[in-house]
């Protein structure tokens, strides 16, 4: 039996199959020790000793966010100790004289240089002096650190120096993060930053996972713990503990895979995901090749080079605050009222937010918000909206302005991941989830000319669904910097052996997928292409698509090779409800006045739980459920499919 458990800010979601149905449970999260909620959830499920628990964890992310990670020592080539702090020598804000210094996870006194040098083609130019190394190891032992990160220049081309350093550090008994093992790729700052981040979260994640695994086996004797990694694949608890940098986006990755898998079942394989929460909004794109992976993510200001699903975040959500600036312009966000004090209508906040604007316009229900667990104070909200509306005539005008402005920033975020990368949003289905996604999805679809919106079943537990359905996966890479005709068979085979051995340890049979990062000679950026005889033509075609030109006469270089070893999750087909043509009237619970484009419309209210597959109706309508509400603007047509997804045809 397989159970997915995703730690969220408020709830920990538990999803599993029973009688070929999804079962969803929610328990309150326990932020001081997230594992307690996991165990509590497991206790609620009837025991089955042979259980696989798949976990979406926020321990690594939170250690980074709160900067509560380990005291890390950093070792690198002598003369380059400061590079981890210098970064790319650019300031984060162009026009802010008072910006704080970018934070470095390694304090000055814990950066150590070792005399050694490898050249770009892997020649060892200067070998390590064991005496010097011993002195450094002693200094580190005296410095009282919790973890150690090692990244020397060109270690991926020749790991000899790092192997010696690792061997000398082994006796200290501290978690070691070694660059050629975790990220053997060029660009020394981004690599070192990744290795340091790994060391920074390693003690915390390591002890969390070890304790959790032990506690789970107390409940289920033959259990196994697995963890969702940021790239959308599952890894064993052992690897997650050793390479926790791979779990920075564990939960959000679940959301991407959940949206991708459920949309796929519904028949849509090209999607733009739109997950709007309280303080921010995540967007991502999936095309025929699957969800996009990035090797240049930045997490809380720190570059991370291991593969992560390419999730773009906009600083606007339901709690974003609206205000007029000194020039009289309406601004929404990036300041957020968050959970405390929260939107005005929650009872404590005093600054109007996006949620308040939705309430003004009739889009939220005062009694049924979060299943009635929060009652919204409409009068209080109206009073503050009136006060803050500036030169605008009515609170409705103010509220619809707030929504238009916030939707503009979301539109911008989606353009960044689609149009700016050569994709036309008209070829995609917008999959909306999170508390705010369904509220704004149709309006955004109109703005971007996206023809269809999908509100998946279980939008409140989509991350856990994705974790449950994900494949087991390991990713390996190496910078080779060779011409395209180079013989790389041996290097590929070496990476594959690593993967197959690891899968064997877990009792899995993996399949290998080879790819290469190619670029035109002299260019600074690469495109990932499946490895094979026609990779050159595939590269030119993708280059044409992404960048608008291709030059078949220009020589190509292979910068990195990549191997992904995957064991697919057992296939799953959720039960289909029989389609019965209907108009949804059984789910109709009332009508209310709702504003669309500044005009009030009498609008029907539906409860999603009561809709049946085959129900079809035209907006204006609101479909509410526990964690959200879907706004169906006038003229758009909603149909409930066999999986109980809401599929909305958007008409321009």
């Amino acid at each position, binding site marked *: 039996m397989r159970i997915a458990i995703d730690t969220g800010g408020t709830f920990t979601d538990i999803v599993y199959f029973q009688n070929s149905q999804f079962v969803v449970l929610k328990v309150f999260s326990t932020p001081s020790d997230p594992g307690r909620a996991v165990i509590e959830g497991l206790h609620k499920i009837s025991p089955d000793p042979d259980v696989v628990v798949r976990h979406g964890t926020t321990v690594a992310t939170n250690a980074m966010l709160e900067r509560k990670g380990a005291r890390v020592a950093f070792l690198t080539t*002598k*003369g*380059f*100790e*400061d*590079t981890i*702090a*210098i970064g*790319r*020598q*650019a*300031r984060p*804000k*162009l*026009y*802010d*004289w*008072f*910006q704080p*210094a*970018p934070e470095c996870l390694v304090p000055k006194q814990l950066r150590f240089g070792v005399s050694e040098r490898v050249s*770009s083609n892997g020649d060892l130019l200067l070998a390590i002096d064991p005496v010097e190394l011993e002195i450094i190891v002693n200094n580190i032992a005296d410095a009282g650190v919790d973890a150690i990160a090692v990244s020397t*220049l*060109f270690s991926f081309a020749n790991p000899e120096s790092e192997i010696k350093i690792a061997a000398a550090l082994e006796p200290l008994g501290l978690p070691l993060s070694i660059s050629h093992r975790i990220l053997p790729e*060029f*660009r*020394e*700052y*981004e690599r070192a930053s990744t290795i340091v981040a790994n060391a920074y979260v390693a003690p915390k994640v390591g002890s969390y996972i070890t304790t959790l695994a032990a506690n789970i086996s107390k409940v289920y004797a033959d259990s196994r713990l697995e963890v969702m990694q940021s790239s959308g694949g599952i890894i064993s608890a052992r690897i997650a503990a050793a390479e926790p940098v791979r779990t920075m986006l564990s939960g959000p990755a679940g959301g991407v895979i959940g949206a991708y898998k459920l949309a796929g079942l519904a028949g849509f394989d090209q999607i733009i995901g739109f997950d709007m929460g309280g303080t921010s909004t995540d967007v991502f794109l999936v095309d025929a090749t699957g969800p996009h992976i990035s090797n240049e993510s930045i997490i809380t200001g720190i570059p991370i080079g291991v593969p992560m699903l390419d999730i773009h975040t906009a600083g606007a959500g339901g709690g974003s605050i609206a205000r*007029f*600036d*000194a*020039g*009289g*312009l*309406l*601004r*929404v966000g990036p300041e957020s009222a968050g959970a405390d004090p929260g939107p005005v209508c929650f009872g404590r906040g005093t600054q109007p937010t996006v949620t308040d604007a939705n309430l003004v316009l009739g889009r939220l229900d005062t009694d049924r918000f979060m299943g009635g667990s929060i009652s919204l104070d409409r009068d209080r909200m109206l009073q503050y909206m009136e006060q803050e509306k500036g*030169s*605008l005539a009515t609170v409705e005008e103010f509220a*619809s*302005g707030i929504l*238009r*402005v916030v939707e*503009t*920033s979301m539109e*911008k975020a989606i*353009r*960044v991941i689609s149009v*700016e990368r050569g994709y036309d949003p008209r070829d995609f289905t917008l999959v909306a989830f999170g508390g705010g996604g369904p509220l704004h999805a149709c309006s955004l679809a109109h703005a971007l000319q996206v023809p269809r919106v999908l509100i998946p079943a279980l939008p409140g537990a989509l991350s856990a669904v994705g974790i449950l359905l994900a494949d087991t996966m390991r990713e390996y890479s190496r910078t080779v*910097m060779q011409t395209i005709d180079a013989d790389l068979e041996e290097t590929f085979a070496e990476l594959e052996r690593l993967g197959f051995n690891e899968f064997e340890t877990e009792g899995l049979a993996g399949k290998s997928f080879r790819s290469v990062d190619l670029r035109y000679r*002299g*260019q*600074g*950026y690469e495109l990932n292409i499946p490895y094979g005889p026609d990779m050159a033509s595939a590269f030119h075609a993708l280059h044409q698509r*992404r*960048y*608008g*030109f291709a*030059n078949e006469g220009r020589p190509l270089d292979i910068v990195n090779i990549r191997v992904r070893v995957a064991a697919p999750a057992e296939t799953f087909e959720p039960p289909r409800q029989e389609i019965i043509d209907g108009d949804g009237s059984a789910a109709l619970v009332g009508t209310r006045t709702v504003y669309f484009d500044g005009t009030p419309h009498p609008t029907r209210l539906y409860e999603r739980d009561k809709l049946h597959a085959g129900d079809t109706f035209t907006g204006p309508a609101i479909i509410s459920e526990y964690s959200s509400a879907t706004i169906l603007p006038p003229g758009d047509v909603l149909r409930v499919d066999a999986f109980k997804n809401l599929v909305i045809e958007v008409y321009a």
Partner: protein
Amino acid sequence: MKPQPVSPIELAIFKSAVHSIAEEMGAALRRTSISPNIKERRDYSCALFDRHQRVIAMGDHMPVHLGSMSHSVDAVVKSLKLGEGDIAILNDPYAGGTHLPDITLVLPIFIEGVDGPSFYAASRAHHADVGGTFAGSMGPCREIYQEGIRIPAIRLVVGGETNTEILSLILHNVRTPEEREGDLDAQIGACRVGEQRLKDLVAKYGHAKVNELSDGLLAYTERLVRAELRKMPAGRYEAEDFMDSDGITDDPIRIAVAITFDPDAGSAAIDFSGSSPQVAGSINAVYPITYSACFYVFRCLLGDDAPVTAGMMNAITVSAPAATIVNARPPAAVAGGNVECSQRIVDVLLRALAKAAPDRVPAASYGSMSNLTVGGWDERFHLPFTYYETTAGGMGARPGIDGIDGIHCHMTNSLNTPVEALEYAYPFRVRSYSYRKGSGGAGEFKGGDGLIREVELLADAQVTLLGERRKFQPYGLSGGMGGEVGLNLLIRPDGTSEKLPAKCSIYAKKYDLIHLETPGGGGWGVPEIG
């Protein structure tokens, strides 16, 4: 006539939409360019202009291009009658440009049924070589004729077709023609992205409405600036600072400024009278550079997300006497005006501003981009190479907070080239890259430290340095001490070394080491004793 106020909501959406177009142009340029200087270091800018050539949106790109790009559009409009499908090219610093490596492309946007261009899209990129005496085109020249090919405003694209004769002429005058061609193509693409997206906007709103919103956006920016200027104390605030030398004589070069605030009118007048006459070396700034520096300083006084539009400068006048270091006339050499003089102009402006608003102004930052250009023959690929890079220094201390170590400030924000990328691409071995400890000025708040970078050459090469703050320290404020001056050394394999002038071009041998130490930032406030 005062423009009608437009809805604060419409305006917010329009501001976001046009800014997003400029950002999309920048993304297209970065993605499709060939050279590391544009792709990795991001030395480029894209902007949109209204029918009066006033900037309405600019991407968050290079500060030194702020405000000066409209001079390029002006120059194009003055000298050419552009038709639909045309794209103009220019780099002449004396007719709309800044220095020769910055090549600007201007595309007029035509709206159906309207005579003449209704908007303009422009892209500017720093090209790694535009010919001239020195590889990389940033050398110590004495006349603009030595600095590279000088392109007045001419049509590179006519009716949608590239003018191959013009292109060929340009490419025959540069050292790396293939790279230049690719980068120019990327610039053309970026302009077309701007054109397409702006036309979409016109289709959505209507032409009259877009004009109204553009005017509204300029008026809004003007209101923001005037609100800020009303907070300034009335009076005239003067300051001066000096550049080390022009690289030919050792004479200091004075830059003087007086800023006069009129809080009642919400305006400021900036006057550079008293600045030194233009010099024989290559550090002269043309007027658009001086204007950019002023634009930048006042842009920083506003909030972080104020839009960059021409409305900003409606409340500010900039006067710079002709034939001086801050408004050079032909045939003065100007390659360094963009990178070195521009930084000093900012220093002088801040020094004057600190007298009016001491709590809002940082001490002087490193004040020199320490430009290093290396050109030669790469045996590994049997090809010539040209490498250009700037190295950051220490940020000046701020009232209430230390300066940042080793970070680009003010008029530039280009990234470094990763050591591992560098050694793959060029016959170099980097020997160290570190903070220059103790180089930041002491103070209640300490100036940021500069950087040390050591590059060993693995081939004979022409090495060109263009640096400043090797003689006069970045100043401290309110009793803070100045930052350390910078230093350049040539270290030979036998261990002997030679101090290199701040501005020079030499032929170095294989295995010679270039050792750069960049200046620290000034301190702020009286340092504690002991």
